[in-house]
């Protein structure tokens, strides 16, 4: 087999584009989970972001406003989940699933008049001189602003969680909400904020799908990306930097599979498609088996409702 025509640089550029919506949604979900909330509504928030972002961008003509609109849409719809789970103590798993259902329906209704429209183009960030540099120029300076922002966001989340007092408090809510409460922190409010941050990130990821990756709006276009984001958080063992690794690896497997086919190499799509999930399970097992390490990463109160006793 002749692999020489597989251009590694081009493939990396492609996989980063494919991975960015997953990355954005996953880093948001990570923050929510770190605060102790399991939100299975990522897919619903993403599709809402995809449609609100698309509507904003096409009406204003500005892709940047579109991304903001997507993030806002995702954050707004996530408040439904936040209110129900934090103040009405509804079960997070069930509420998250309901959110996905609601979001898919609402997005389809909202987008009914936006079929067949091309959104304004999101330009790549050209760095004079550097973008034209061979290999490195393409590898580092050939992306749109959102891709840089997504990496920055991962850094910011890492910094916030590990280097700031606010991050410490947020993690405390996820580790032991009773203790955080007795220290005087408003667990519900903190979680509310974390859920909205997750919603904004998911919405931004959705907008990236409808404005950059496949610039168009069609019903159900996120096609399960939100669920993959959930897997990536686990794969990353709740560590921000590993979310990048996970998202890019997942994107990489998809791109590699398609590129190998384009090269003329037959591979079984179905078996290859399951590998990321199996790898995620293996990582989860390895990580969980070491109880000491697991206790540092996996939030102990994940998915558990907090009732402040009066």
């Amino acid at each position, binding site marked *: 087999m002749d692999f020489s*025509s597989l*251009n590694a640089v*081009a*493939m990396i550029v*492609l996989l980063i*584009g*494919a991975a960015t*919506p997953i990355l954005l949604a996953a880093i948001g979900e990570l923050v929510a989970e770190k605060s102790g909330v399991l939100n299975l509504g990522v897919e619903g928030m993403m599709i809402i972001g995809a449609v609100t972002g698309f509507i904003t961008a096409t009406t204003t003509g500005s892709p940047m406003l579109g991304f903001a609109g997507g993030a806002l849409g995702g954050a707004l719809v996530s408040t439904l989940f936040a209110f129900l789970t934090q103040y009405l103590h509804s079960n997070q798993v069930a509420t998250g699933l309901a959110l996905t259902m609601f979001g898919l329906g609402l997005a*389809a209704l909202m*987008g*009914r008049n936006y*079929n*067949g*429209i*091309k959104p304004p183009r999101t330009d790549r960030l050209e760095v004079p001189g550097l973008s034209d540099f061979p290999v490195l120029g393409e590898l580092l300076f050939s992306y749109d602003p959102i891709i840089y922002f997504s990496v920055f966001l991962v850094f910011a989340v890492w910094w916030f969680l590990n280097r700031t007092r606010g991050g410490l408090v947020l993690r405390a809510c996820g580790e032991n909400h009773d203790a955080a409460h007795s220290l005087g922190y408003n667990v519900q409010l903190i979680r509310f904020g974390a859920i909205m941050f997750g919603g904004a990130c998911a919405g931004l990821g959705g907008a990236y*799908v409808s404005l950059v*990756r*496949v*610039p*168009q709006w*069609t*019903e*159900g*276009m*996120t*096609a*399960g*990306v939100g669920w993959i984001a959930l897997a990536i958080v686990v794969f990353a063992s709740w560590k921000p930097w590993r979310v990048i690794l996970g998202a890019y690896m997942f994107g990489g497997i*998809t*791109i590699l599979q*398609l*590129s190998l*086919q*384009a*090269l*003329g*190499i*037959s591979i*079984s*799509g*179905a078996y290859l*498609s399951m590998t990321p999930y199996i790898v995620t399970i293996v990582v989860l097992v390895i990580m969980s088996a070491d109880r000491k390490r697991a206790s540092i990463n996996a939030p102990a109160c994940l998915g558990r409702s907090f009732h402040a006793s009066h």
Partner: protein
Amino acid sequence: MKFTKTLAAAAAMGLALSGSAYADADPVKAGFIYVGPIGDLGWTWTHDQGRLAVEAEYGDRVETSYVESVPEGADAERVMSQMARSGVDIIFTTSFGYMDPTINVAAEFPDVAFAHATGYKRAENVATYSARFYEGRYVIGQIAGAMTETNKIGYIASFPIPEVVRGINSAYLAAKSVNPDVEFKVVWVYTWFDPGKEADAANALIEQGVDVIMQHTDSPAAMTIAEEKGVYAFGQASDMSAFGPNAQLTAILDNWGPYYIDRVGAIMDGTWESTDVWDGIGAGMVGIAPFSDKIPADVQALATETIAAIASGELHPFTGPINKQDGTVWLADGEVADDGTLAGLNFYVEGIDGELPN
């Protein structure tokens, strides 16, 4: 006594008469069952365009209804039954997976006509219809073969089923006929609709030097990528030039309107019967969108000629000599593939690289 009886009879007759007069004024009801949302801009959207064409044609004389995103199986059976019970005269079931449900429900409602798209099971009140999309693929294959400069044509394929394999073979034979050096790169994405993955596939193909892309998936994602990367592509199912004003060379159009209008008209005349329609360019079920001015005049002329020849029946895309991929003879010189073989086509023709997944 006698008088009242007569009166009653007359009244009953009058009622019956007015009843039948009423029936004449009663619009014909046509129901449509869709597998996806009408906003998919692909398969379901084209069928809904057909439904709208029926409404436009007959106005008040017809009443149409539809249900979107109906899963194939028990749900489909239920929706069909409900439609039949509500007094619908003809039901179009527009996905292959509705085949068995259609047959089952049709048996329970012998007075309702059913038409099932792309299947192969018929009954007294179940017709089938499908389009010879491979004819359209032959036309675009020729254009692709003439337009490619790298001699590499990319093909985004959904599932390895006869319909898709037929399209690949037809397009390849056509491309080869105008460009002996042409090479096909087929990528199977195992989905009908996943814009993200379709976009990835287009990107991966372009990366491999492909400069013309064909697709057999539903979304316009590949077209948008082609536009962005400056390569050519063909619209699938509908005109996608809005997504690729520079990229789209032409498009294969799924044009169900004429068939739907004809069948609903047959219900009105009372002449409907179960038929197996497999129409192509000739009958207008498969259309070719206007050519892009990027296509040179001689290629346009050739394509126009091909369209005419296919429409008249003079040219059949699968005319021998054609060998199978392994080199064995499929069609002898001058031999034309019969519909039965085409319906179950499960091999590549000679010259296509790569293995057909089983």
